[in-house]
């Protein structure tokens, strides 16, 4: 009644993000004060509008207005982030498991996970948690059959061809490779969420010492 989905694409593709971002801007501009929330995600945007101000018919019209003549945002629209990660079995138990499956050493997994830019397709699950992709096909790993009851904040994981960082301690079923000391969601910061949809992210492997220096918590993910 007070929300409409704008569906722009049928499949996940990084090349779609400039269009999603452009639609995000155009919808924010057109709806102005009547916009309550706008949630972009991979191929869609959920427009939550103020029904005290406009009917669904008007909302549909406003969406049409906003999208008419839409041009993709420039590829530089999303910000770039470099996220230092301590890749280690103690804080990323699936590092070895994936390496064994592929018959390579863990350094090779790190090199491949950190070897490309990822796109933040959507935020969700918890505040500041970005669903990023695409992980190279060979590294794709299904979620754990039994999710962990607690995954430490900063844990870097993969699920299928997506990668993400746990923004706060929570239950979770992603395959964990390492940990970052970067705060993804900080209410005291001007930009409370480090990531926004459309941002580009690259992981940088760092040593245990550097991780500790950055304030990282070395508590193993699972006490054995």
């Amino acid at each position: 009644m007070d929300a409409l989905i704008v569906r722009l694409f049928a499949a996940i593709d990084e090349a779609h993000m400039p269009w999603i971002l452009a639609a995000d801007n155009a919808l924010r501009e057109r709806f102005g004060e009547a916009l309550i929330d706008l949630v972009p995600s991979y191929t869609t945007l959920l427009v939550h509008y103020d029904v005290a101000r406009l009917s669904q018919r008007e909302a549909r019209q406003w969406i049409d207005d906003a999208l008419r003549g839409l041009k993709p945002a420039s590829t530089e629209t999303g910000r770039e982030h470099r996220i230092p990660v301590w890749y280690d079995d103690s804080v990323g138990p699936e590092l070895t498991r994936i390496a064994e499956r592929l018959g390579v050493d863990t350094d090779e997994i790190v090199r491949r996970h950190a070897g490309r830019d990822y796109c933040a397709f959507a935020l969700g699950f918890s505040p500041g948690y970005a669903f990023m992709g695409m992980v190279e096909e060979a590294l794709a790993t299904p979620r754990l059959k039994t999710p962990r009851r607690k995954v430490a904040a900063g844990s870097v994981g993969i699920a299928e061809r997506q990668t993400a960082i746990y923004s706060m301690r929570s239950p979770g079923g992603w395959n964990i490779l390492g940990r970052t000391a970067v705060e993804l969601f900080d209410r005291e910061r001007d930009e409370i969420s480090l990531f926004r949809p459309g941002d580009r992210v690259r992981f940088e492997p760092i040593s245990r010492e550097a991780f500790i220096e950055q304030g990282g918590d070395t508590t193993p993910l699972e006490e054995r």
Partner: protein
Amino acid sequence: MATPEISRAASGNAALVVEGTGPLALVEDAGRFGARHLGVTQGGALDWIALGWANWLLGNAPDAAGIEIAMGGLTLKATGRMAVAIAGADLGATRDGETLPANGSFVLEPGQVLAFDQPRAGLRAYLALPGGIDAEPFMGSLSTVAREQLGGLDGRGSALRVGDRLTAASVAAETREMPCAMAMPQDEATLELVTGAQIAHFDGASLYAAFNQAWQVDSRADRMGVRLTGPALHCRLEGMISEGIPLGAVQVPPDGQPIILLNDRQTIGGYPRLGALSPIACARLGQCAPGTSIRLSPVSPHQARRAYLRQLALWR
């Protein structure tokens, strides 16, 4: 509507001190808006109508923060004179042992104890203080979300605890009498639903079942969502890509048993949906105990909006 009776009751520096807690008592307002694209959930009072009435009874804005008391068990002691109001579920509220109406405003004298027992009708009662609850909002809201460590008295998502002090955001209230009854669902409830984009992907038998058979409210129900049990629904759509989820979305996971997503839901999700409940139906669902028999009734967006605006107009 009858002309409200207006009286003035100063609350000064009075506070309500939590002396005992039940299953869950949370600071809630209308919710936290404008940050769902960052993964921050909406939150807010499940029965926003009851919160609105509790506020109205004190002359507050309908979306001022109050306390959502689930299942009772909360005991509060007044340190000074304060007008308060309650609305929503009948949780057997008493003032120094004297029975109070489930919906009404009244004054607590210094030392008096306001106690909530257990549900007699509905699940959640709302307590309003003059002007709302005095605490530091985050992104414009005091709504408590434990999972996100946001909102509440401490700003860290904590539920009310023994020793907490509730203070009012303003010193004076204009107390009013409840102008109408507020019915709580008992054994059955009809929930209005606006059908959504994936409705055509459900097979005919499932659509018939969805809108013509009774559903049961499952015990797996919380502020994130309420699971219904009944005939398994089948959707032909597979492998949906996650997208933003509106309040009241009725999603159908592969087991065919619908889950109605409420205020503390995750911001995006990838299960097909029948549609979304109207805001008024969401409020009603927040009062339905496990075992309640539910019927889903399709309405047009226009009908749902009209009913919503009628409710808002009652508080103007």
